[in-house]
């Protein structure tokens, strides 16, 4: 009897291990097969390099131009991170303000939505007039585009604090600032990190848009220059590097999220205490 149940438990554990291993490998398998399929399609259909370069062509271009590719992507990375950092600070502050005060919410929200609906490409020329060609238009575009999701999420997290939770603190004579610090902010953290994952990827979009409209430096400029020279493999190399940077930063945001807001995902593998 117990032997049988042991065997069954072991089988279940083995199945769970296989499942986890598959989960860990699956993204890599999907990426590798995408490239293989792409390579094969280009080969079989005889698409010219000018239309769609094969991954091997892209790789060759990346190896050939590794120095400017590295310099420009580092430039874009720094620009994006500065804009993103500003967006985090401003987004947290404004999100807390909007989330904790109905007046601020009613007053500011329409303006924020209007502002977010403006295509950021249209703003870049204005930024160039204001700040000149250089790194600032890209930083500010990254900031503008990644700021909104952070504000909305932090505000939602704070505004949806359960009234009972707030009453627990109010009944003790807590000041509104105490309630934001002890309940609002910690509760908004899962929302905040969820928004960071969106914000960091769109921040790249922002800085690269600015770099392509006002070519000064960065991976956006590199791609503009490459396409004006009809060097399509290099354009694709730039795109892939951008994607890799996006994934890397997404992972970092996710890692921080897991470390700081484990309570929200309720570690499923932990044993529940029994009794009551």
């Amino acid at each position, binding site marked *: 009897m117990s032997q049988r149940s042991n065997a069954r438990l072991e089988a279940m554990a083995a199945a769970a291990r296989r499942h986890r291993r598959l989960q860990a490998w699956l993204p890599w398998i999907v990426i590798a097969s995408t490239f293989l399929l792409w390579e094969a399609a280009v080969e079989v259909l005889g698409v010219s390099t000018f239309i769609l370069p094969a991954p091997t062509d892209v790789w060759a271009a990346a190896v050939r131009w590794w120095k400017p590719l590295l310099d420009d992507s580092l430039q874009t990375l720094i620009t994006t991170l500065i804009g993103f950092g500003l967006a985090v600070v401003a987004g947290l502050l404004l999100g807390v303000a909007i989330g904790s005060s109905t007046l601020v919410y009613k007053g500011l929200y329409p303006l924020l939505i209007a502002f977010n609906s403006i295509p950021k490409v249209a703003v870049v020329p204005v930024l160039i007039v204001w700040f000149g060609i250089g790194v600032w238009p890209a930083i500010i575009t990254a900031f503008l585009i990644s700021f909104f999701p952070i504000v909305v999420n932090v505000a939602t997290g704070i505004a949806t604090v*359960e009234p*009972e*939770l707030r*009453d*627990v*603190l*109010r*009944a*003790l*004579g*807590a000041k509104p600032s*105490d309630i934001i610090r*002890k*309940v609002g902010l*910690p*509760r908004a*953290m899962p929302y905040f990190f969820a928004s960071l994952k969106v914000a960091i990827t769109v921040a790249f979009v922002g800085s690269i848009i600015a770099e392509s409209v006002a070519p000064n430096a960065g991976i956006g400029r590199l791609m503009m220059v490459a396409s004006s020279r009809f060097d399509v493999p290099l354009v694709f190399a730039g795109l892939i590097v951008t994607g890799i940077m996006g994934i890397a930063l997404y992972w970092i945001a996710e890692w921080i999220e897991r470390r700081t*807001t484990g*309570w*929200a995902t*309720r570690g499923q593998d*932990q044993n*529940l*205490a*029994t*009794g*009551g």
Partner: protein
Amino acid sequence: MSRAFVQIDNVAMRYGGVEGTLALEGCSLEVQEGEFVAVVGPSGCGKSTLMRLVSGLWPATDGNVLVAEREVDGPLSLVGMAFQNPTLLPWRRILDNVMLPLEVVPAHRKRLRSERAKYEAKALELLKLVGLDGFGGKFPYQLSGGMQQRTSLCRALIHEPPLLMLDEPFSALDVFTREDLWAVLQQVWMARKPTVILVTHDLREAAYLADRVLVMSARPGRIIAERRVPFPRPRTMETTFLPEFTELVADLRSYIAAARKGEEVENVPA
């Protein structure tokens, strides 16, 4: 003792403006210092509203609420509250949840930093008292509903409030857990003698725990009957099987049945 510790005089409470729902009207009651009072009534009769008025979470529309001879005009830090739900902060470990009031109540927050070890020892002692020894480092989601409610009780007690407001704290629990917690609450009350107002719809709970049971009418709520509970303490589960106990519960039930029909109940003097 010239004046009661909690004094509610002809209080009314209306929600949502002039045309809104009248939850309480002409509601008067007194609770002496160190007394354990239970308030029972049909559902929706304004019991929880009463709690919120006394603890200063909401202002009364009419009438006076006095606690410790002071007019209540805002939340009082001398109140400890526990609600129907445990309302623990899910990102805090059990010990930190229990210690939350100490970070807020002015008298304690100043001393918390320098005397943290002492306060922590006190919190652990409370957890032990309610049977949660060794769970201080867990997160709320790792505990069962009953254990979370015990934690919530500890949180209501940690700053040694002279007034304990319990708003149906056991109603979401199963019968056995609930009866366990009655004993725990009685033990705490006998050790510290805080003034307690317990709102409940469980008549056995009211009769087991309270010195005095007040019955509220249907909305708009006011006190329509009052019964003193004569059984000596500590009461046990055996107490609840006494014929007198059953009789008391039956009486309370008949008041509530009448209140639900909207009939007047003859006030029984205590």
